[in-house]
């Protein structure tokens, strides 16, 4: 399966080519190159997936294949960074997700970014991102993952800051990079600790479940916790940064300043699930050696999920609502991984998490692209500027509705199946957590339909010119993704992805499924009642719970806390004093030495007065003294 290398190399070449020609070619040419490359990559990914799942199924378990592998940089005899391609069920699944969504975004951008300054640059960055993300998912070792982890971070930075003349975009890109960089530091330290004890970066060895690998770490503790727990917790911090887990989520809502297709690709479907993927990749370590950390991940995920859902209910910017919704849904995936066991039905959570990753990528990309289509029509992100759009934009309306139903968990749309499995896995682990997640599912349905009714129903807002349906380049991806969303739920996912790589049948639990459908429907009807027609209830509710509403719409002041820490503490109370110290104390000491030297030389300068008579007098005195000494002693 050597040809899988092409999946990586083609986008890289496309990036280099488009980056070098810059604006010398016509935008259409540059866009076509990027898109056709992605088309080939997507086809290759589908082919790989087909080959992998059809050929590997016979032995009963899916094998790990490494079709390509080179040593890139050698540190010591055992520790070396290799670059390679690793195929196993989750990486193949991710290949499909990334290349599909990326291809859709490439096509969509033809319409959405038409006439933008820097069209070629945009496609170059998209290629760079696709390359990095694909490299991340096929990483054979943890350091390769780190390398591509950084690269996706940079592509995300470049794409968020695509409109670089807009100060908000610049600030958002900076924030995204620095927050994730901070998390990456945790990741790096985690890697260092892990590799110090295990003497390897290789996923194959790390996740083999062989206790000898971690033999060096037994008994090693640091501040009360085992070193291995520290390592895995730190690695999770890296994942939490990329996947916007509380409290490192603050960059994601701001990242919506980037072009909308970018939000769909990077900040909804692919890059933000890298953290989930990382935990899934290292799942055996978490499960067998540090279950405490794994449970911690579940609780972090659950809290984030609820927290983000609450905020999403009161945001007015449609992209922000979707961003918080993304955070909330990733929280679901984390919970699901956190509560999962290993093997067979115990590993339902693991499989559900990956399934939800897959379905979520499709319907969330669809939601973002739909939102992009709306923004394209009304030139605003604010919900208040929309309303009654269903008449003007039929395709967008239908596809958006499909996605809303999917995320709310209404059968037979894909989100229902994956979310239901997550809920039943959580129920098995801890019923309280299960009810919490069901409640969050209700919130999800509520805010999604609040969005839906506000955009497509409700009072029509007076537009400067009549909104119209988007061009075909934008509607085709919508229709495609909507089709996937409708049918993806029927994929027997357990056949392909499971914690121990053995196919298993997962079946619906009627109790859990029934409850989640009821909750979702209630939430939807509530939203319909509140937002379909003009209704004073939302304002009344907002006034009744004024404190909560205000706090939620300010995102619970987490951003303010961060601003306080960065601006006030780091900037004003660390960096400024250090710079002052440098200029005044250290430099002052050096200047002080110079001043003392100068002062000293001035003090003894009278000695060299230039008066010959004075010199002669001193000579005479000296001669007399020496003579006296010679004579009398």
């Amino acid at each position, binding site marked *: 399966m050597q040809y899988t290398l092409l999946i990586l190399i083609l986008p890289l070449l496309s990036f280099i080519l488009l980056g070098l020609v810059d604006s010398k070619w016509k935008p259409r040419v540059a866009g076509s190159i990027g898109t056709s490359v992605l088309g080939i990559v997507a086809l290759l990914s589908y082919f790989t997936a087909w080959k992998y799942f059809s050929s590997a199924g016979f032995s009963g378990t899916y094998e790990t294949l490494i079709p390509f592998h080179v040593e890139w940089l050698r540190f010591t005899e055992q520790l070396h960074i290799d670059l390679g391609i690793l195929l196993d069920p989750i990486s193949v699944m991710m290949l499909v997700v990334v290349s599909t969504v990326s291809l859709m975004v490439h096509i969509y951008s033809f319409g959405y970014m038409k006439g933008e300054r820097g069209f070629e640059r945009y496609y170059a960055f998209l290629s760079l991102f696709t390359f990095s993300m694909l490299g991340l998912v096929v990483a054979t070792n943890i350091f390769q993952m780190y390398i591509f982890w950084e690269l996706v971070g940079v592509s995300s930075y470049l794409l968020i800051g695509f409109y670089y003349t807009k100060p908000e975009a610049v600030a958002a890109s900076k924030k995204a990079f620095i927050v994730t960089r901070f998390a990456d530091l945790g990741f790096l330290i985690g890697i260092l600790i892990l590799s110090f004890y295990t003497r390897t970066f290789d996923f194959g060895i790390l996740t083999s479940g062989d206790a000898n690998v971690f033999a060096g770490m037994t008994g090693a503790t640091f501040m009360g916790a085992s070193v291995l727990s520290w390592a895995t917790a730190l690695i999770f911090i890296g994942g939490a940064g990329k996947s916007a887990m509380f409290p490192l989520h603050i960059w994601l809502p701001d990242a919506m300043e980037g072009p909308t297709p970018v939000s769909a690709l990077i900040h909804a479907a692919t890059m933000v699930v890298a953290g989930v993927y990382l935990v899934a990749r290292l799942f055996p370590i978490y499960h067998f050696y540090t279950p405490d950390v794994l449970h911690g991940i579940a609780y972090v995920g659950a809290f984030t999920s609820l927290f983000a859902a609450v905020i999403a209910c009161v945001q007015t910017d449609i992209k922000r609502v979707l961003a918080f919704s993304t955070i909330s849904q990733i929280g679901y995936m984390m919970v699901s991984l956190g509560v999962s066991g290993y093997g067979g039905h115990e590993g339902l959570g693991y499989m559900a998490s990956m399934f939800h990753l897959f379905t979520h990528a499709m319907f969330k990309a669809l939601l973002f692209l739909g939102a992009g289509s709306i923004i394209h029509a009304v030139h605003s992100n604010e919900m208040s500027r929309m309303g009654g759009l269903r008449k003007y934009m039929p395709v967008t309306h239908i596809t958006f509705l499909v996605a809303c139903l999917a995320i709310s968990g209404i059968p037979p749309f894909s989100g229902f199946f994956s979310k239901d499995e997550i809920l039943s896995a959580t129920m098995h682990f801890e019923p309280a957590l299960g009810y919490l997640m069901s409640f969050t599912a209700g919130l999800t349905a509520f805010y999604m339909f609040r969005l839906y009714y506000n955009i497509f129903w409700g009072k029509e807002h007076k537009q400067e010119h009549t909104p119209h349906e988007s061009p075909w380049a934008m509607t085709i991806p919508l229709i495609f993704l909507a089709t996937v969303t409708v049918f993806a739920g029927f994929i027997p996912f357990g056949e392909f992805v499971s914690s121990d790589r053995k196919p298993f049948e997962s079946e619906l639990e009627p109790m859990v499924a029934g409850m989640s459908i009821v909750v979702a429907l209630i939430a939807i009807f509530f939203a319909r009642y509140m937002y379909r027609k003009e209704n004073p209830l939302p304002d009344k509710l907002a006034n009744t719970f004024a404190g909560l509403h205000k706090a939620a719409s300010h995102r619970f002041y987490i951003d303010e806390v961060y601003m306080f820490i960065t601006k006030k503490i780091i900037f004003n109370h660390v960096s400024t004093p250090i710079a002052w110290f440098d200029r005044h104390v250290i430099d002052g000491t050096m200047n002080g030495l110079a001043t003392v030297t100068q002062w000293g030389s*001035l003090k003894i300068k009278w000695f060299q007065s*230039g*008066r010959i*008579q004075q010199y*002669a007098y001193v000579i*005479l005195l000296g001669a007399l003294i020496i003579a006296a000494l010679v004579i009398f002693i």
Partner: protein
Amino acid sequence: MTGLFDNFFSGSVPLEGYIIVSLIMFFAGVYGFLSRRSLLMILISIELILNAADINFAAFNRYLYPGHMEGFFFTIFTIAISACETAVAIAIVINIYRNLNNVDVDNLQELKEPDSPEEIKK
């Protein structure tokens, strides 16, 4: 003529006499050199020091190496050089006088560095 010289040197004037004279001349010169502010007086003091040295030359030559003449030659040589030196010095003094309208050494500070850092910065 020889008799006169013989009487003169035959013990009536001891070496110490010459040395005392030259010592007084020398220290008078040194004192003048150190204390006077006028260039002319300093020049005269230098002449005194030189002449004190000349006397010593002549006296020591006579007492230590009677019959040899090197000391006397050297004295004459020194006198000639000091004459030249005086001529040059007087020329300098005259030039200084033309520039400054006096010949006081304390006023000759044109080439000197200023005394304090404030002045340096100017």
